[in-house]
C-alpha cells in the first residue's frame, strides 16, 4: 500500500542524483505508482521544453558585452577611489533628502542645547556658592599680599601706578614708550 508519494525525490531520481536506500525506495515506489510515473514523464517533458526555450535566447555580442563590463568596472573603481565618477549621493536624492532632514534635526537639537547652556551661564550662581567664592578670594588675596608685599611696595615708585586714572587718557597710552619709570608724568600727558 502506498502511504506517501516521494514527490520531491522524483526529479532527483530521474536525473540520477539519488543513491543507495533512497534510490531503491523511489524505484520501488514508481513500480507501484502510475501517477508518480506519469509525474516523472511530465516533469521530463516540461524541463526538456524549458531547455529548448532557454537555448533560443541568443547570447550577447561578446566584444560589446566585455567593453560595457570594463566601462562599468572602471567607473566603479574611480568611484571607489573618490575620483571622476558620478557621486553616489547624486544617484540617491531621496536618501540625501533624508540626510539633510536628519542633519537639520541634529542642528536644531544642538542649537537648543547650546541656548539652554548659555542661559544657564547667565543665571546668577546660588548665594552660598558666592559666599564661598568671596571667602576663598579674601584668603587668596591675603596670602598673595603676604608673599608679594615687597614687590607691591616697589610698584609705588612708578608714577603710572600712582595715577591709574591716567590709563583712561589715550594720549598717555599712545606715548607709554616715552614715559620714564622714574620721571613723573608731565602735565601735558595728563591733560
Amino acid at each position, binding site marked *: 500500500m502506498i502511504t506517501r508519494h516521494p514527490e520531491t525525490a522524483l526529479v532527483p531520481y530521474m536525473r540520477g542524483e539519488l543513491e543507495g536506500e533512497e534510490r531503491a525506495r523511489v524505484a520501488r515506489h514508481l513500480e507501484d505508482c502510475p501517477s508518480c510515473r506519469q509525474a516523472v514523464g511530465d516533469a521530463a517533458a*516540461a*524541463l526538456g521544453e*524549458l531547455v529548448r*526555450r532557454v537555448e*533560443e*535566447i541568443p547570447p550577447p*555580442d561578446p566584444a560589446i*558585452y566585455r567593453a560595457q563590463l570594463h566601462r562599468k*568596472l572602471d567607473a566603479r573603481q574611480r568611484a571607489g577611489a573618490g575620483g571622476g565618477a558620478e557621486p553616489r549621493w547624486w544617484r540617491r536624492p531621496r536618501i540625501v533628502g533624508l540626510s539633510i532632514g536628519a542633519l537639520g534635526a541634529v542642528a536644531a537639537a544642538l542649537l537648543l542645547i547650546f541656548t539652554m547652556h548659555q542661559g544657564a551661564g547667565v543665571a546668577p550662581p546660588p548665594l552660598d556658592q558666592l559666599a564661598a567664592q568671596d571667602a576663598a578670594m579674601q584668603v587668596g588675596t591675603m596670602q598673595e599680599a603676604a608673599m608679594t608685599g615687597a614687590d607691591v611696595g616697589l610698584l609705588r615708585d612708578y608714577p603710572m601706578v600712582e595715577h591709574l586714572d591716567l590709563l583712561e587718557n589715550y594720549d598717555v597710552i599712545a606715548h607709554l614708550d616715552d614715559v620714564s619709570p622714574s620721571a613723573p608724568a608731565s602735565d601735558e600727558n595728563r591733560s
Partner: protein
Amino acid sequence: MEPSDEELCRRVAERDTEAFDLLVERHQARAYRLACSIVGNEADARDVSQEAFIRLYESTGRFDARSRFTTWFHRILVNLCIDHLRRSRWWRKLVPLAGPGSEADEAAIDPASDEPGPESEAIRSQSIGELRALLEKLSPRQRAAVLLQVQEGLSSREIAAVLECSENTARVHIHRGIAELKKAFKRE
C-alpha cells in the same frame, strides 16, 4: 593546459586583468542566459550579469580556494537576480501590462545599457518574452532552482549550496517550480 577557474580566480585576486578577461570570456554567455531566464529581460540580464562579474572582481580575495568557482559565482549571480526580481516586483504589479524593454523593466542595479548588440532584437525579445510568461508564476527562488538545474546542470545538492539552503528545501523549490511550469505549458 588551460588554467582552471579557481586558478584564474586566485590571479584575479592579485589584480591580473588578463585572468579576469579569461574568466569573463568563459562564463559571460552562460551568465547572461541564466540571468535572462531568471529576470526575464535582456537589458536587466546584461546589467545583472555584468554586475556579478564586477562583484567577482572586487571580492575574489574572499573566494575560498577549497570550494568550486562555479558554485561561488552562481551564488553571486543568482542572489543579484533574486534581489532584482524582488525590488522590481512592486513596480510590475503597478504596471502589469508592461512588456519587455519597457520602462517598467528599468534596471534596479544600474540604468539599462544603452548599447544594443548586433543580434536580432525581434527574435531575442520574442524568446525572452515567451520565457518570461512561462516562468511568471514561479517565485524567484523556484525560478533560480529550476533554471540552475536545466541550464547549468546542477544537482539538488549544488543548487542548495548556491541558494544557501538545505538540499530538501532545494528539492521542494524544484518540485514546486516544475509544477508551476507544467501549468504554464497547459495554459499555452
